[in-house]
């Protein structure tokens, strides 16, 4: 029972939790907190079971549950997990659990917050588990709604603007995705939404057609669909120039939500590309890969430069915000994912997927750490600190760890993924990769600079008696720190999980 429906249990436990939390009396704040914790801990345990029982040798979906849902349209409730998604599922459950701990201090609208949060977790898990396009789409939208409220209600000063921007952006993307979904359905024979079916050769056949008087050949139509799908996912990644919602949303969202945004939501775009565009439209993906690599490069460099500007740009011009810096660094780091994905080499794709996971852990740490300091001093101005190193040594240690992990220091997990991406992409785009390595320097530059501004140098006397990290905050950070170090030293536990599936994915492109 448990093993047969493991994924469903995992996806819907938070929903149950949401109902329970919603039914609790709102005056019992601790009940709400503890039950939310319980209902994020359960999926964590279930994902642990999943991890232990996952067969690394298999490339196909495992723990598959497939039942007919809307038979008229051949829609299934189909969930399963393979090497591509398992790391992200583990990341999701872990981060959700940690974020509940990090949300302990929230007082206003606690019940609503946690209900939304649990719904969000269900949506995220659903996205990573679903392999029916329709179900995927449902979860995609399901995740959107709580996120909108979480940013829009519990966010910072410009929360409404940020939330609406986030929502509209993503909705725009998902509308394009919807078009593609319908196209897949109607051009597949037999009509199906099943992603695995669709990826089989010969199922999907496009015809030439006219759209608004422009006649498209079948190939052009497929390319158009790819671009639609790409934009849908690119917004989530986010890929330049669809990235502008990100700094805003990250900055305005409350800490745990920034963590989820950066740690998991950004991965959905790349995941979607790998899950849907790659297997189903391999030719078009291959055709587009040059552009993808260039966009990856732009992301890397552009994100890093914009992040660095947060230190130089005065506050009045929208700079000087630590969270924004991290947000832009996320853009930069997602660029590595794109670069790795674009080359179809073993190293590249492993590096990309592993980078998704690593970015999840490191950026989560970063946002949590920003939250820690924000809770204490209620601002995030990079210039507003100074010399905290001796006042809050443990905090400093964690920030340093997170910063160094982000800038790709060897021995920490991001290094492995970045190096894999570079090794992979160098084979295909040597000169582009060389330019991309600039990103490493730029990353190092702004992270170290920020580190210096905040922790080094003479102590800002305002913060003479700043409290160091608390046990609860330590609890949220320590697991991530351990993951970052352990996977940095020995990455195989993570790479082994994804190996078979990614190799299988690559076979699609070997002929091209």
């Amino acid at each position: 029972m448990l093993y047969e429906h493991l994924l469903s249990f995992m996806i819907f436990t938070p929903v149950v939790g949401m109902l329970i939390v919603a039914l609790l009396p709102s005056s019992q704040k601790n009940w709400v907190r503890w039950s939310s914790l319980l209902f994020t801990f359960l999926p964590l345990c279930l994902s642990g079971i999943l991890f232990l029982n996952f067969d690394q040798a298999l490339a196909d979906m495992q723990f598959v549950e497939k039942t007919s849902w809307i038979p008229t349209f051949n829609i299934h409730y189909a969930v399963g997990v393979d090497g591509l998604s398992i790391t992200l599922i583990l990341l999701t459950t872990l981060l959700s659990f940690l974020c509940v701990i990090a949300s302990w201090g929230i007082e206003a609208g606690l019940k609503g917050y946690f209900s939304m949060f649990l719904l969000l977790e269900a949506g995220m898990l659903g996205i990573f588990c679903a392999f029916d396009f329709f179900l995927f789409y449902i979860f995609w939208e399901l995740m959107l709604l709580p996120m909108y409220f979480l940013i829009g209600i519990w966010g910072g000063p410009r929360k409404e603007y940020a939330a609406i921007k986030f929502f509209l952006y993503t909705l725009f993307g998902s509308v394009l995705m919807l078009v593609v979904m319908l196209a897949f359905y109607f051009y597949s024979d037999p009509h199906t939404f099943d992603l695995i079916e669709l990826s089989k050769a010969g199922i999907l056949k496009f015809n030439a057609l006219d759209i608004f008087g422009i006649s498209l050949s079948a190939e052009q139509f497929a390319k158009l669909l790819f671009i639609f799908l790409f934009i849908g996912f690119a917004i989530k990644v986010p890929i330049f120039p669809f990235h502008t919602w990100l700094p805003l949303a990250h900055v305005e969202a409350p800490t745990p939500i920034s963590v989820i945004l950066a740690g998991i939501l950004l991965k959905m775009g790349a995941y979607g590309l790998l899950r849907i565009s790659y297997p189903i439209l391999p030719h078009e993906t291959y055709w587009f890969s040059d552009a993808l690599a260039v966009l990856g490069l732009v992301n890397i460099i552009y994100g890093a430069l914009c992040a660095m500007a947060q230190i130089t740009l005065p506050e009045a011009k929208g700079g000087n915000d630590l969270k924004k810096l991290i947000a832009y660094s996320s853009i930069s780091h997602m660029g590595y994912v794109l670069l790795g994905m674009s080359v179809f080499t073993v190293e590249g794709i492993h590096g990309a997927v592993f980078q998704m996971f690593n970015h999840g852990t490191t950026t989560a740490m970063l946002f949590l750490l920003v939250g820690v300091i924000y809770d204490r001093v209620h601002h995030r101005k990079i210039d507003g600190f100074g010399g905290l190193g001796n006042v809050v040594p443990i905090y400093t240690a964690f920030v340093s760890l997170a910063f160094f992990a982000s800038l790709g220091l060897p021995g920490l997990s991001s290094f492995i993924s970045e190096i894999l991406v570079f090794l992979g992409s160098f084979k295909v785009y040597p000169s582009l990769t060389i330019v991309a390595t600039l990103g490493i320097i730029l990353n190092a530059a702004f992270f170290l600079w920020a580190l210096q501004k905040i922790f080094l140098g003479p102590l800002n006397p305002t913060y003479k008696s700043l409290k160091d990290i608390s046990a609860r905050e330590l609890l949220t950070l320590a697991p991530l720190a351990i993951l970052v170090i352990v996977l940095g030293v020995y990455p195989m536990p993570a790479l082994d999980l994804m190996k078979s599936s990614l190799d299988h994915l690559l076979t699609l492109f070997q002929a091209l």
Partner: protein
Amino acid sequence: MLEKVLWLWLTPLATAIILLFLGKRLPRRGDWLAVMGLGLSLTLSLSFLLELFQTHTFEWREQMAWLSLSGLSISFGWLIDPITILMLCVVTTVSFLVHLYSTEYLKGDPNYARYFAYLSFFTFSMLGLVLVDNLLWLYIFWELVGLASYLLIGFWFEKKSASDAAKKAFLTTRIGDMGFFIGIMLIFYKTGGLLTYDDIFKFVAQGQFTGEFLGIPILTLAGILLFLGAMGKSAQFPLHVWLPDAMEGPTPVSALIHAATMVAAGVYMVTRLYVLFTPEAQLFIAYIGAFTAFFAATMALTHTDIKKVLAYSTISQLGYMMMGLGVGAYVAGFLHLVTHAAFKACLFLCSGSVIHATHTQDMREMGGLKSKMPITFWTMLIATLSISGIPFFSGFVSKDLLLAGCLSFVMEHPEHLLLALFAFITAGMTAFYMFRLLCMTFLMPAKNLKVIDHAHESPWAMTLPLCLLSGLSFAIFFTGSLDGAGLLQVFGSWHDWFNEVILNPAPLDEAHGNAHGPAMALSLILATGGILLSYLFYLKKPELPQRLAQNTQAIYQTLIHLYWIDELYQKIIIQPLLKLNTFLADRDNRWIDQKLVDGWKPLTTQTSKGSGHFDNIVIDETLVDGSAVVVSTSAIQLRKIQTGKVQQYVLMAIGAFCILLIAVYFL
């Protein structure tokens, strides 16, 4: 064997971790732990050395799987051969002595335990760098060493200059590292996924490494790229700027990292990968090295900060080594690394001792310390003699060999005369500025009595390392004959051992032999000249330097401002970059976000406004509200029926029902 290596290697890591987490709770904050840990590593390294002496050859390797994907497997492996053993000894010896020295030097610092943790961590990384057998891991430890350097330079981070220096060090070396990394990728790509030294060497030896890029052979390109890493780490022009600033760190750190070990990593790397460097690449190395040597020496001439002078000297000496490697005299280059490690560490530690005593780094405030700090003076003198290349001291051995190599190379390729020119002038300048330092610190009459009064000799934990290191500055420990330097043959029965130590020593050809005599003579003359000149300038006629400076204001200012290189970098790299950042971020906000994305807003708002108007006027007000008006007027009439009396309703309902029934049944 593996156990031994692991003990040797991991003990510092273990002590680092223990000290980091528990340091504050251990007695004496755990410095003994670090020292003892290093002692263990030192003992083990020395045991390897002894074994090497006995067997004359040594080679041990071990590999284990680390990262394997389909078609890619990167292993982790150790390679121990004579070079490794020598490096291990250098690293552990200096590190041990520095640890010992630091127990006194850093006494009472609030972050004492953390300091030792960092130091041990550095040692661990450096040992790793030396031990590994593969390029990727070399890169990994390369970076970790950089991290340790960053942490240690910025150890006193409350000083803004220290944190600036740390950042600068990290970033500058990282620029070099990117070259290194690209080089690795190039090799990885060209060799089809090989990373282990041996595999790559084999691949190159088989001549499979082909291809050109912009007319340059790929191998050359790869060599130059790899050398870029060395340039960063070993502070070669133009990436040398970080090293003088790095003197902001505690002096023992400078001795360990920025004199003896980390900066020598570049030299080690070039030696280790010597096979990969094509003649063209070597020439590049030689030029960079020679120029750096000369260039740094000139800057050392005028500086008055005791540590900065030493730092420029280090850069200069490293340039020497690079030059040696570049001209083919890699034995000499590497030997110079070893000897330099000893005497430069000694010099730094001495300067540390002085700083510890006087609490200043400005030489102009010192003077007359000879009587106050005799041990420091004498050990420093020995080290200075050694660096100046005076016979019987270790520096003479290696430097002489280097110059000979250079000279023979120039004799063979006269078009590269510049190399020799740089090399020999630098030799003279080295002697001059080193003795200048010695004179200003110890011999000149005291200028600032306040500073001098409190000065006293340092405790044993500081002087013992000085003594040991100065002892190692004697030639005796390094003399083999190294080609009939007959004078030296009287020392030691350890004939030629150094030659054996180095992997496949290049046969000293005829030219080299021929060059040896002149080189030695020339360098001796230049060194003596330098010493005498400094004697003249600083002891005999102390007003001379002042006058000289005034007379050659342009040169003097250039030197004092270090050729305005920092300012130049600021102008041409950093400022534009920052401007670009700001511009981009601003545009990101104003153009992409507000124009490109939010720009859709007017369109949509106008459209929606239009449709809103339409909706409002045509549909809503006319159609919908119109029907509402119809309904409401009729309703006003009809509501009169609604009396609020239920019974009337029933009456009407039944009546209506009757009518309905009648209609259905009877009509």
